[in-house]
C-alpha cells in the first residue's frame, strides 16, 4: 500500500526559461563584481580617518553636557519650537491641499493643481529647501520652520489624498443621496473615514520633523543642528556626543509616545 513518490517544486513565476534564468543570475553576479571593482578606496585615508573616528567614539563615551549646556539648551528649545509650529502649520495647509488632490472629490483642474504642489514639495529634498530658505530669509530658525512646513505639506497632503481616494464610495453615495452639499459630503462621509489615519500620519510627521530639524540646522537653519555643527567644527567631540545622545533620547520619547497615542486613538 505504498503510493509512488510525487516530488513537488514551486513552479518558476518570473522567468520561465531555465536558460534565461541562468544567464540572469550570472549577469547579476558579474555586474556586482565589476561595480565593486570600480570603487576606489584610499586605504591610507581610511587609516587616518579611523583615528578621528576613535576620538569621536571616545567623545561619545564621555559626553560633556555641562560646558556648552547653554548653547545646547537654546538649540533644543529652538528645534522643538520649530518642530511643533511647523507640524501644526503643515497640517493646516495639508488638509485643503490633500482634499483638492483627491480625484474622487474635485474637478480635474483643481486635482492637477494640487497634485502639482505636492509633486514640487516631494521632489525637493529638505536640505536643498533649507539652503534655499536660508539664502532667502537669513540664518536662524525661521528658515528652518519654513523648510519643515514645506516638507510636511508634500508628505501629509499626498498620503491624505491617497487615503481619500480609497474610501468606501458607498458611504459617500448615501450621503450625497440625502441632498447634502459638497462640504457636507466631505464632513459627513469623508472625514469620519480618514480622520484616524490623518491623526496617525500627523504624529508620525511630528517625529520626522524633529529629526529633520537636527539635519537642516547644519546648513544654517537654526536649532540643535546648528549647535551640533558648531561643536564638530570646534573639534569638541564630547559636546557633539552629548548633543547626539540628546537627539536620540528625544526621538525615542517622541516615537514611543506617538505610537502609544496612535494606538489609543484607533
Amino acid at each position, binding site marked *: 500500500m505504498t503510493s509512488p513518490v510525487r516530488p513537488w517544486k514551486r513552479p518558476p513565476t518570473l522567468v520561465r526559461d531555465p536558460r534565461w534564468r541562468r544567464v540572469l543570475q550570472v549577469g547579476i553576479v558579474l555586474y556586482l563584481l565589476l561595480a565593486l571593482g570600480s570603487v576606489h578606496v584610499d586605504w591610507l585615508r581610511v587609516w587616518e580617518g579611523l583615528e578621528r573616528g576613535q576620538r569621536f567614539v571616545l567623545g561619545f563615551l564621555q559626553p560633556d553636557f555641562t560646558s556648552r549646556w547653554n548653547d545646547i539648551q537654546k538649540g533644543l528649545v529652538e528645534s522643538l519650537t520649530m518642530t511643533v509650529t511647523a507640524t501644526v502649520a503643515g497640517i493646516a495647509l495639508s488638509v485643503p491641499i490633500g482634499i483638492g488632490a483627491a480625484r474622487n472629490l474635485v474637478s480635474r483642474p483643481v486635482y492637477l493643481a494640487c497634485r502639482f504642489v505636492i509633486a514640487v514639495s516631494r521632489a525637493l529634498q529638505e536640505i536643498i529647501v533649507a539652503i534655499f530658505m536660508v539664502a532667502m530669509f537669513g540664518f536662524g530658525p525661521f528658515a528652518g520652520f519654513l523648510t519643515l512646513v514645506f516638507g510636511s505639506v508634500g508628505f501629509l497632503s499626498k498620503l491624505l489624498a491617497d487615503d481619500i481616494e480609497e474610501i*468606501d464610495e*458607498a*458611504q459617500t*453615495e*448615501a*450621503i*450625497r*443621496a*440625502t*441632498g*447634502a*452639499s459638497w*462640504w*457636507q459630503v466631505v*464632513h*459627513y*462621509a469623508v472625514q*469620519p*473615514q480618514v*480622520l*484616524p489615519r490623518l491623526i496617525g500620519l500627523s504624529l508620525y510627521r511630528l517625529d520626522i520633523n524633529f529629526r529633520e530639524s537636527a539635519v537642516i540646522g547644519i546648513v544654517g537653519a537654526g536649532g540643535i543642528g546648528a549647535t551640533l555643527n558648531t561643536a564638530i567644527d570646534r573639534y569638541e567631540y564630547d559636546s557633539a556626543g552629548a548633543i547626539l545622545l540628546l537627539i536620540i533620547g528625544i526621538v525615542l520619547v517622541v516615537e514611543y509616545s506617538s505610537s502609544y497615542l496612535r494606538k489609543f486613538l484607533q
Partner: protein
Amino acid sequence: MLEIRSLSKTYPTGHEALRSVSLSVPEGQLLGLIGPSGAGKSTLLRCINRLVEPTDGSVLLEGRDLTGLSTGELRRHRRRIGMIFQEYSLVERLTVMENVLSGRLGYLPFWRTYLRRFPQTDIDRAYHLLDRVGLGDRANQRADALSGGQRQRVGIARALSQEPELLLVDEPTASLDPRTSRQIMRLLTEICAERHLPAIVNLHDVPLAQQFMHRIVGLRAGEIVFDDAPTALTEKALTGIYGEEDWKSMRQEDEEAADSEADAQRRLKEIAGR
C-alpha cells in the same frame, strides 16, 4: 406620483444600461423591480435621484422634471427622495443618531450640520424613527457596532428622516439572512403603508417580491419586459425576464436552499425530541 418618460442611459464604455424606459408609480404603491444582474435595475434607481446622470428622457416627481436641474435645485429635490442601500451604506464611524440625522443634511446649511446643531424637531423625529424601527436604545452607539439587520433599520430611519415623498430601495435584503430579510421587508411595507409612501424596490429574490410588492416590473437588458400584478408572475413570465437558463438554475438553487432548510429544521426537531 413619479413618472419616468423614455429614460435612457448609455455609459461612457458604450454599454446601454437603459433603453427608453417609461414607468409611472402612483402614491402608496410598492413596485418591485426584478431582473437578471446587469439588466439595469440599479442604474434605473440611481437615474431617478441622479446619482447616475441619465443620457436621455425625463423623471417627473409631482410634475417637476428632475433631469436638467442645477446643482442647488437638485439638492433641494434629492432630499424629497429617500434611498436605502444593499450594504446599508451607513457612515461606519459615526453614531447611529448622527447617521439618522444625516438624512436632514439637504435641509440645513453647512455651519449647522458642521457644529451638529440640529433643530429640536429633527432630533425629536430621529428619536421617534429609531423607536419605530426598534433601535431607540442604540442612539449613541457607533454604526459599525450593529448587526446587519440593525444597520439596515438605521438605513431605513435615515431615509425616513428626510420626510421623503418617494423611497428608492436597492436590494435591501441582499446581505441579510432569510429570516432578517423577511423582517426588514415587513418593516418596509408597514412603514410605506403608514405614510402612504410609494417605493421602488430592486429585488433579486422573486418569492420575496411576490410576497410583499403590489406590482412587479421585470427588466431585461435595459428594457421593461413585464409589468403586472405579482399574481400574474407565472413560470412563463419569469422565463421571459430571466431567460430559460438563468431562471432554471435560479429555481434549482431556491429549491436546494428550501430543501436544506427543511432538512435542518427536521434535524433540529430530532435533537429537541431526544
